[in-house]
């Protein structure tokens, strides 16, 4: 399809400064996918997210495994002596950091040194967006300075991402991805079926992994883009206060409406929607031992398609008989159970990919429950350029990253080309951009700021 161009460089005249932790990594990376020049200002020891596993130790042959660190180990944690770390001892082996910091630049400096202030002021005068993330105490401390700097640059957009937002009685509570998934309501609707007495013997589940920060990061990117649009119209910057807690709360479908309107609390159930009552179990396994999402919605066309599929595969059934239609009217549960048993038989008879293709050919929205890596070689995603091949010189190879959610018919709408930066990899470039000359850089170096 002939189309307009990709949005992958549509924001490339904007500069974003990012200071913070894992709460902000993803938001800035999303914006960097649209071409924003995202500069990570890191403390000299590196951003905290450089210390989140898993860790890779190049070359790949040297990768070790351990229980808590997939690639490093508890007794030999990633250290300043890593072959890929540089500029002050930060670690560059965090695969977490790699994932969430594509396309960015890194400048390492002592963020809290008094000599850094004029430098930050220069940057504030030239930047368009500042993203501060982390625990409330740290963010508030930094925000004080950025409020002052924003008063000198009225078009500056300053966004904070904190666990609970800058105001409110919970603002100082501590949290992690897990506890955010708990308090935001996602855990309460995810997990396994209760027993026959409707009592749960398994805990609520936080789907893996980092989704609290995903949702918050997406909302932060939306809010920043809204502010950019507003700035285009008005010339004015503004402050944005993103709460991870609120972000997670927006993302639980019918849980809140069911309670508000009907006073009902939805119940978590295995691999299907939480609902005010327990619905029928419907996971089935294919001949090659893959779980399959194979179920039918209430639409008549799906019932017809399934009967056709059963015929194709040679599953005997009475779905088209008047007796079955009668059963549906008189005992819908029994009819449902009968049909579910047929689905299970059918799925068990074929490999998952074949069930998938046959069902989809008849318009049934079925899918194998794939591992993420199963998609790496799927021709569909190759054709769509869904993965971005990013070169890792320290590994001597490319890694495929999920690189976009949309295309323009030919190209992805988000454009990821550069691996996450090593600590301080772009310090000189960033200082020059800010307007520092060589003498000033040397002075800062002598003061121990760089």
């Amino acid at each position: 399809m002939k189309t307009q161009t990709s949005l992958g460089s549509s924001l490339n005249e904007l500069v974003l400064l990012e200071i913070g932790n894992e709460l902000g990594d993803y938001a800035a990376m999303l914006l960097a996918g649209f071409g924003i020049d995202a500069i990570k200002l890191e403390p000299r020891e590196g951003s905290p997210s450089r210390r989140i596993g898993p860790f890779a130790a190049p070359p790949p042959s040297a990768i070790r495994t351990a229980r808590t660190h997939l690639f490093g180990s508890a007794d030999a944690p990633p250290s300043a002596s890593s072959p890929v770390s540089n500029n002050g001892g930060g670690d560059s082996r965090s695969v977490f950091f790699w994932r969430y910091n594509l396309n960015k630049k890194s400048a390492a400096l002592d963020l809290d040194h008094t000599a850094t202030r004029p430098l930050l002021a220069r940057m504030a005068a030239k930047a368009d967006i500042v993203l501060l993330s982390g625990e409330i105490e740290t963010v508030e401390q930094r925000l004080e300075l950025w409020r002052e700097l924003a008063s000198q640059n009225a078009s500056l957009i300053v966004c904070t991402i904190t666990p609970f937002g800058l105001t409110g009685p919970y603002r100082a509570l501590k949290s992690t991805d897990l506890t955010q998934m708990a308090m935001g309501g996602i855990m309460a609707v995810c997990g396994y079926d209760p027993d026959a007495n409707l009592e749960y013997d398994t805990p609520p589940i936080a789907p893996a992994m980092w989704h609290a920060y995903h949702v918050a990061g997406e909302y932060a990117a939306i809010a920043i883009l809204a502010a950019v649009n507003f700035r285009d119209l008005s010339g004015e910057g503004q402050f944005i206060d993103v709460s991870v807690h609120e972000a997670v709360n927006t993302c639980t479908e019918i849980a809140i409406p069911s309670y508000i309107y009907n006073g009902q609390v939805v119940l978590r159930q295995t691999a299907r929607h939480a609902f005010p009552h327990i619905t029928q179990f419907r996971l089935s396994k294919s001949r090659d031992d893959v779980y399959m999402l194979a179920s039918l919605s209430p639409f008549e066309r799906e019932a017809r398609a399934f009967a056709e599929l059963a015929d194709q595969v040679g599953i005997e059934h009475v779905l088209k008989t008047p007796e079955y239609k009668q059963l549906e009217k008189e005992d819908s549960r029994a009819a449902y159970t009968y049909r579910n048993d047929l689905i299970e038989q059918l799925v068990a008879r074929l490999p998952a990919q074949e069930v998938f293709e046959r069902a989809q050919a008849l318009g049934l929205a079925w899918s194998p429950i794939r591992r993420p890596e199963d998609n790496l070689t799927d021709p569909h995603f190759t054709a769509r350029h869904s993965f971005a091949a990013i070169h890792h010189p320290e590994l001597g190879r490319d890694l495929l990253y999920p690189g976009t959610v949309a295309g323009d018919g030919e190209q992805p709408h988000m454009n990821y080309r550069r691996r996450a930066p090593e600590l301080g990899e772009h310090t000189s470039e960033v200082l020059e951009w800010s307007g520092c000359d060589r003498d000033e850089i040397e002075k800062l170096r002598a003061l121990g700021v760089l």
Partner: protein
Amino acid sequence: MAENENTRRSALAGVRIIDLTWLQVGPQATRILASFGAQVIRIEWRHPAAVDFLRYMQPFAPDHATAQGGRSQGAARSHGIRGNFDRGGYYNNTNPGKYGITLNLNHPKGRDLLRQMVREANAICENFSPGQMDKWNLGYEELRRLNPRIIYMQTTGVGKVGTYKNYVSYGPTAQAMSGLTFMSGLPEPHPPAGWGYSYLDHSPGYFGAMLMMAALRRQRQSGVGAYIDLSQTETGMMLTGTSLLEYQLTGKPTSRYGNRMPYLDWSPHGAYRCKGEDNWIAISVQSDEQWRSLIEELGSPQWALDARFANAAGRKANEDELDRELTSCTVLEDRYDLMMRLQAHEIPAGVVQKAPDRFDHDPQLKARGYYVDLPHSEIGTWPIEGFPAKLSRSPADVGGLTGRAAPKLGEDNDYVYRELFELTADELAALRQEDVI
């Protein structure tokens, strides 16, 4: 466009979006765009086979709810009122701030009317099954001929281009395919727990809003439109964390970890049962210091003094036993009381909140004004879930330009067709007569 309405200071002032979306994934994006001041015109058709499923999906507003009342009249179970498509609670929460009109796209005059609207719009969004718009001759290529600046966003399960381009999908299908369903749950032999809702009806909507805002800005600056082929499954793939990289580095298949933390020495790390029915607290201990505070707060039980638990490596190595023992303590505790006591020691702890906890109790959401009361023309005023960020100059307002929750089916026909598109009363009557609107 629509400038006369945008007296407020909003990020998307003057933007008009033709909204053909339905269910959740499409409307999620336009909900956000409406809350930033875009004029979102939601097009539906009243034939029962074409009505948005969310209009007749539970939860419904209680049967006693009236236009002048709402939540103040109390919550109650309802099966809806047969033939009435204006009482859906989830629909109301999904579509606030939008104008609602009816238009029959199976009628040639309906399609002509849509073409006329597209000429005067910034963007059009749809999430029909792949190919439906092409069947109507309303695909991107056709619409850009009418309006070269148009932004066309199409959301499908697996995308409009590619081997599976004709495949169909609901949120759970995309979740299964992307890897997200597999990743959620207890380790094997437990099956995947998956997601208790369509996460991939939410997140792609967030991306849709993002992509649209980038495209609208470019359109304003350079007059260029865009075609956006947004895939729910690709969105899911973006959210699989580090699993794809781990696989490429180690060749080890992705596995499940339950609620545990595989990437840091955080332990205990999970959900623990508390007093009461299905009450749980999530606790993430990040250091030995936090561990010592935790056991002290629990009265230093004998089991917790076991040397195996003294450091993170030991706790990690004995996590099954640790979780069992810890549960024997938490099960005696009130969940909120324990949460606040642990928080006093700066231990990340949070109640696994259910809907009543989040709506009736959560003081943070209350203080931040998270739920927004908005009127609906048939079922009255109900709380609507808000936008999770506060913008100081162009705040999000889920009531959008309408100042209202979701529209009734065709509620704004007169306003939109007559005021915005300047049809005469006679023309409108004729279109009604012909079953076009």
